[in-house]
């Protein structure tokens, strides 16, 4: 079945279902559109399907039914050998940072360029550029265990930025951070968004979502239960959607 993908949406999910091999239904009939330069909070209880949605977007998992397109590309038809090039368009950060402990800050960021065969001539200026965006100048030679949690997440963000991604996915990026540090990370994501990158952040952090008043997509039991602009963590009592 040919699905016409509207060009306006950068991320487009159409009746997406995801059932894991063990029978767990993670997502059912999810339809979602995210236009370019949007800033979206993905909220919901643990196990609601947020992480599954993120994994589907970088095609770590395939949909059981329905279609997902990213940048006009139908992910279920994406060949495995083209997958790396999708990943280069999408920057990703996680709750646990996923830094390499035996590499310095500089090397951790440079690693992403080296393994994707970015031209080495431009490696140093590019790494310095993204490190200055996240405010880590002067920490280049430190190792991850010499940094605070917030600084480690900044390194991860810098690493996710080296390919100038069009989309930035953050899966619980503040999950391990104290409130003050969390706010610094959010400021950074806003800054990235302001540079023209679409940002999607899955989070449990109620305070941040409520204060920010951005688009909120709430998932519960594998379904989208709420999608509102300038929303809060919980649905307003009388709002009908």
């Amino acid at each position: 079945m040919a699905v016409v993908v509207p060009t306006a949406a950068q991320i487009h999910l159409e009746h997406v279902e995801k059932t894991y091999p063990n029978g767990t239904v993670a997502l059912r009939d999810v339809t979602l559109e995210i236009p370019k330069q949007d800033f979206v909070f993905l909220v919901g209880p643990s196990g609601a399907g947020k992480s599954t949605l993120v994994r589907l977007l970088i095609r770590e998992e395939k949909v059981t039914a329905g279609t997902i397109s990213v940048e006009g590309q139908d992910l279920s038809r994406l060949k495995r050998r083209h997958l790396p090039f999708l990943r280069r368009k999408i920057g990703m950060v996680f709750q646990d940072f996923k830094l390499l402990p035996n590499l310095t800050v500089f090397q951790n960021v440079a690693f992403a360029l080296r393994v994707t065969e970015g031209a080495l001539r431009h490696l140093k200026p590019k790494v310095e550029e993204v490190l200055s965006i996240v405010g880590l100048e002067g920490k280049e030679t430190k190792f991850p265990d010499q940094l605070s949690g917030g600084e480690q997440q900044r390194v991860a963000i810098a690493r996710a930025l080296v390919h100038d991604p069009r989309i930035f996915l953050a899966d619980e990026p503040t999950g391990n951070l104290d409130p003050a540090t969390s706010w610094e990370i959010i400021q950074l994501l806003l800054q990235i968004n302001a540079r023209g990158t679409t940002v999607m952040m899955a989070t449990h952090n109620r305070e941040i979502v409520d204060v920010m008043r951005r688009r909120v997509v709430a998932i519960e039991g594998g379904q989208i239960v709420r999608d509102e602009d300038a929303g809060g963590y919980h649905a307003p009592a009388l709002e009908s959607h």
Partner: protein
Amino acid sequence: MHRLWNRIDFAFSSAWQNFWRNAAVSVASVLIVWVVLLALGSLLLVLHSLDQIVALEKTKASAISVYLADTTPLSSAMDFKLHLENDSRVTGVTYVSKDQAMARFRQLPALDPSVIDTLGTNPLPASLDVTVKDIRDLAAIDQEVRSSPLVDKSPATNYEPNVIDKIILLARVAGIAGLVLIIGLTGLSVFIIMLTIRTAIYLRRKEIEVMKLVGATDWFVRWPFIVEGLIVGVVGAAVAVLIVGFGYRPAVINLQSVLIFIPLAFDPVYLRVVLAAMLLFGLLLGSVGSYLGVRRFLKQ
């Protein structure tokens, strides 16, 4: 060019790190590769030597030397020669005197001429070298000449009907036994290299996760492990090649001095072929083992 260099540099430096990071496992796989290649090289050289012997024995197959008693006068020997020449089965007869026999004997490889000189008298008999049309007639002729009083009794002839068959059988048995051994060892070494690669992949699982996350291609992730397998193959092969390369000649010389009458020769051309084959086989073991390793353990 820049990118290619980056790819090669990354693959080799990671592979080298992997090799030393799990040094014990790496050394085990180098050892097994070494054993396989040593067996392969030795087998090829032994079979080649047996081939040499068979080839030489075959040229001698249609001929028989009839040894004459030292008491036989030359005229009687010539009569006997004539008698044999008149036999329809015989194509030719050559008389070899005691002195000629000694001259031939002196030409045997690895024989010290000074040893012969200490003998004083010449112990070798004169002989009639008879060639026949059909090898199958050799047995009958052998029987006939033995009854002649002119013929030496210890031994009467050099007729040994089964020697070629025995050598061919020996070569075949050695070949099959060696092949079975090498096939078994090959399977074992591929398996051990696979485990080595698996260990390396496990030690690098975090890096691999990050590489895939930031968009490294499958082959960029795989290459370091393939190169590690190749390093194992090359190192194992190199050690085996050195041993066989430097050991073949002394081994031949030693055997020549023990087995005087067996025509064994050092064959440098064939040695080079064997060494090249060993190196190639080492590379093959390394690449197959590591390919299976990355195939099985780097899915997704």
